[in-house]
């Protein structure tokens, strides 16, 4: 909840000074009308104290109840009512108190003559305070809402990125374990090797979730590990080819971005044809972008890759958009029975992803 404006030292000081000036002006005015100084002073202090207390009370209470836009006319009624009460209270205290004094003979008459002007001034003061409070609280509320919306958006974005990154296919894991189980009986050495590979792969998977950016060389090494495991599973059917120019080995990319693309290539390469399959991965640098192409065969008769996002690539498209705020970084191409996924990763000097920049500002 927003704090009352009077709870800040600066505004409280302003409020008190405002009240003091008003009281001083009223004293001068009353003396000018010919009232004795003592009476003018008492009148001014009592009535202005009431006004100050009412304003403080009003402002404080709006913390708990703020009229909605279509009910702003409530403020008018509250201010009118409050002004009436202030005036009645002033009369009840001041008239008996000051009329008894030796020099206060005409005070009662003076008060009833001046009530309309008094009411005017009090109403203006109270209404002004009410309107200022409404503005203060609604802007605080607005700010709070915006903050909350930003927080929610940021959380959703982070969660989405985490989810997109973390799609380790359970099929892969369980089938690999089954292959190991089969190897244990006849080829225990190879089983041990595959356990090692699978462990390295899983460890890499865990580690990468914490990192924001990884070098391409590391990512390719990791993919090779993954492909080696798949080769044990699919035997002679799977062949792979990785071509990477020396100058792009050091380029940086988001972790776990290429793996789903290669997984997709394997899925459609191996499950869409019955022949032996070659999956190619090629990387090169071009004008501040590292360009990675993943190619797999498919059967054009039974699968129709949709233009743009291709088979199951929409989650990668989404992730690239969340990271770079661009929708043109993923592209697919069909030539004959070859399907190619092309991903372009912008290479900036500071290597900070766009999302990080946004969060800090």
């Amino acid at each position, binding site marked *: 909840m927003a704090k009352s404006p009077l709870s800040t030292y600066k505004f409280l000081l302003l409020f008190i000074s405002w009240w003091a000036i008003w009281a001083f002006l009223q004293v001068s005015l009353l003396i000018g009308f010919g009232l004795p100084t003592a009476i003018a002073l008492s009148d001014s202090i009592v009535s202005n104290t009431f006004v100050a207390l009412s304003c403080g009370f009003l402002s404080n209470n709006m913390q708990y109840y703020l009229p909605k836009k279509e009910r702003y006319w409530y403020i008018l009624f509250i201010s009118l009512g409050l002004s009436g009460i202030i005036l009645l209270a002033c009369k009840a205290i001041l008239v008996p108190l000051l009329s008894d004094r030796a020099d206060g003979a005409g005070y009662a008459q003076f008060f009833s003559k001046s009530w309309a002007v008094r009411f005017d001034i009090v109403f203006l003061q109270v209404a002004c305070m009410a309107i200022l409070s409404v503005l203060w609280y609604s802007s605080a509320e607005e700010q709070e809402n915006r903050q909350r919306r930003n927080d929610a958006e940021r959380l959703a974005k982070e969660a989405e990125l985490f989810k997109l990154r973390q799609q380790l296919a359970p099929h892969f*894991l369980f089938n690999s374990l*089954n292959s190991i*189980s089969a190897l244990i009986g006849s080829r225990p050495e190879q089983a041990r090797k595959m356990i090692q590979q699978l462990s390295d792969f899983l460890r890499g998977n865990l580690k990468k979730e914490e990192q924001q950016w990884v070098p391409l060389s590391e990512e390719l090494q990791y993919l090779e590990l993954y492909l080696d495991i798949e080769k044990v*599973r*699919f035997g002679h059917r799977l062949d792979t080819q990785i071509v990477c120019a020396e100058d792009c080995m050091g380029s940086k990319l988001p972790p776990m971005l290429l793996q789903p693309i290669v997984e997709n290539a394997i899925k459609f390469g*191996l499950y869409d*044809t*019955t022949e032996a399959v070659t999956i190619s991965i090629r990387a090169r640098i071009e004008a501040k972008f590292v360009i990675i192409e993943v190619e797999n065969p498919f059967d054009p008769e039974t699968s129709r890759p949709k233009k743009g996002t291709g088979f199951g690539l929409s989650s990668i498209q989404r992730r690239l958009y969340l990271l770079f705020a661009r929708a043109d970084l993923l592209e697919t191409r069909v030539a004959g029975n070859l399907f190619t996924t092309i991903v372009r990763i912008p290479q900036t000097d500071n290597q900070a992803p766009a999302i990080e920049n946004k969060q800090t500002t």
Partner: protein
Amino acid sequence: MSTNNNTAAAGEQVKAIIIDDEPLARMIVQEYLQSYSEIVVLQECGDGFEGIKAIQQHHPDLIFLDIQMPKINGFEMLELVEEPPAVIFTTAFDEYAIKAFESHAVDYLLKPFNKERFDKALRKWLDQRVTRTSDRITHAPGAIAHGPAGAAPNAADTEALLETAAQSPAQQQRIVVKTGGKIKIIPLEDIHFLEAADDYVKIHTHNGAFLKNRTMSYFEKTLDPAQFVRTHRSYILNVQQVTRIDPYEKDSHLCILQSGATVPVSKAGYVKLKGVLGL
């Protein structure tokens, strides 16, 4: 088993086929089967096409079947086999498939599985086979058919299993048919309409019509109702193909498709069609 001499199954060889696209997965089934001298593995197949051929050739009693395989999956393969043998599924984690198995009492092995679990599945099947075969001999001595007679799974069970499997997201994109000796995969968007034809359903597509050994209600249940509407007792049509709907005789309409074909629409079918098209 050696003392059990009052059943036809005792001592008889059991013919089995292993269908899995991963060589190591086939290897472990082979290994586990070594302790069963009565079970002979006639062939190992690396995909569903080979599987169908092998089943037609050998008429096995039992198959070990993987689900995720190249081109056509295990369920689709089973759809194309005329008299499916008993099936033990071997599969990695697949929530949807497991639901199908559980509700239709066909056994399945979750990869990786150990020898005990494998034995349990096989024992269960072998025992059932003995009971079923002896029942058959007692109650209907002349009625033993050729092929995988004794232990063939209940036909209704298989039908229900395939129906559930066909509703999985992977299979909702296409229909697999056998035409002549060839297997054809029809993407759903190629389908114009389906027509009842005796015991078959005729699937009309861009590239001609194909017959599939299923019922209209099977397709009505498994195809996406937002795309395929049963407009008539004998017709289901792809709403994306509709160009025009003309009134026909009393209470009925005719639907004209992009291909020029006309499909009858009954009174109830018209209401459904209007609902899907948002008219």
